[in-house]
């Protein structure tokens, strides 16, 4: 049973978090230097995003994430289609894909540093590497699991192999492809933020969190963390809306 007031339920958790944060701060559970009150973090977030450094850092992280996703898509989607179209081909490289998909992308940082040096390229490429494998895997599976009946239906109507691929198999793989894209974006953001902390970055949200912590500017650090959270949540949310309208038939 749902009541009209039920749509306010998600706010209860938020309010509870703020309440316990205040409680912890007032009771000095943690050193107040390490745990500033929520309003201090909120003010820092507001100031940071309104012409402060955080605003610029926010932009850098978004640009790196999007750049890495674009690179990942350009490589992984066509490759995934080719691999998915031939199950034997996919089986022959499946282990490699699964292996590197399971490898924490942060373990690849040193390698990419050696190859591409310190700079934007390294961060973007590592993120593209991680996201690309996730997208590749999902696209290939989407293509492989295309409904046999739909392919037969198109064939019996006289569709050539090429037409079946373009009109049926690709459309069939869309829902799974979008799952891959959404997961890929989440992963790319994680990798970019970590890379911004440790790969000699001078900007980006990861750098902002790290620098604020180094300078003991705790409100700023919490502000940057929330900015990162909002970015991740926002990207996922936007993508879900896009997905719902684009692959409207998914799951039906």
């Amino acid at each position: 049973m749902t009541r009209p007031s039920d749509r306010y339920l998600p706010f209860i958790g938020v309010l509870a978090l703020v309440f316990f944060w205040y409680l912890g701060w007032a009771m000095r559970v943690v050193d107040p230097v390490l745990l500033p009150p929520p309003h201090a973090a909120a003010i820092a977030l507001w100031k940071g995003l309104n012409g402060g450094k955080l605003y610029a850092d926010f932009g850098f992280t978004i640009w790196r994430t999007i750049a890495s996703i674009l690179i990942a898509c350009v490589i992984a989607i066509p490759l995934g289609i080719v691999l998915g179209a031939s199950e034997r081909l996919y089986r022959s490289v499946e282990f490699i894909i699964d292996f590197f998909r399971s490898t924490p992308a942060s373990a690849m940082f040193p390698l990419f540093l050696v190859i591409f040096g310190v700079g934007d390229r390294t961060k973007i490429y590592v993120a593209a590497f991680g996201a690309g494998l996730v997208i590749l895997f999902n696209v290939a599976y989407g293509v492989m699991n295309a409904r046999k009946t739909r392919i037969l239906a198109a064939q019996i109507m006289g569709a050539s192999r090429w037409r079946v691929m373009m009109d049926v198999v690709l459309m069939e793989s869309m829902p799974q492809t979008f799952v891959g894209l959404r997961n890929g974006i989440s992963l790319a953001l994680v990798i970019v933020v970590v890379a911004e902390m440790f790969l000699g970055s001078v900007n980006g949200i990861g750098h902002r969190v790290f620098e604020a912590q180094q300078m003991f500017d705790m409100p700023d650090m919490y502000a940057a963390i929330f900015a990162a959270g909002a970015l991740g949540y926002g990207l996922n949310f936007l993508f879900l809306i896009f997905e719902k309208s684009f692959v409207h038939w998914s799951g039906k």
Partner: protein
Amino acid sequence: MNAPLPVTDTAAPQRVRQLPGPADKPPAHITVRGLYKNFNGSVIYENFDLDIPRGKFVSVFGPNGCGKSTLINLISGLIPIDGGEILFDGKTLAETRIGYVFQNYREALFPWMTAFANIEYALKLRHVPKPEAQERVRKLVAHLGVQIDLTLFPYQMSGGQQQLVSIMRALVVEPEVLFLDEPFSALDYEMTLFMREQLQRIFEETGTTMVLVSHDLEEAVYLADYVLLLSRRPARIAEYQMVPVARPRNDATLASPDFVELKRHCLEIFQREVRGS
């Protein structure tokens, strides 16, 4: 239309018609000769001959796993044959326009297209220019008197509506033969009855040669001009039974003595084949 019913000769249960075509020999549309098919070493069809008459409705019925669906899948090219020859008016499959309606309409229609676009797509594959294609879809819809909102996507429709769209997609190219593989078995009973009427009307309107696979004997007999009864595998023609009952058929048909007797006769052959005696 009231040909005498065949008398079942109980004294000779082994009697099996050797002729590939039905008894009254109307002109053949599809000729199957020496068909051979095996699945993983198990022979489904061997030296199988069959004639399907032009402009008639043939129902295929037989024991489970005898290869009813396989038969129309072989004829329509969904499954490759291992031997023999299948011709449509002497032409090969590649030279013939056929339509096929799948049992699983959910997985046969394209959910990313509206119902209208689904039907139109069959014409697009035949390189019919878009304005003409749309016109032909509209004409077919009007001709069949279908009352469905075709701007909906398949998943927004009922099962029966989806299957009706499937049938229209198969019909829009004006196929020479329409194959239907248990098209109503995923529908509830009420919808099945409604769809039978729709299909009967479509058959009468278009006069297309139709081959229906059914697991429901009543449905098979009700719709058919001929019921093709198959034996257990390797499948033989156990009986190619004419159904000389006037159309349009309706609820009264189901209760008429002729129909009841025909159905009983088919059931008898079916049971004989199931027992495999």
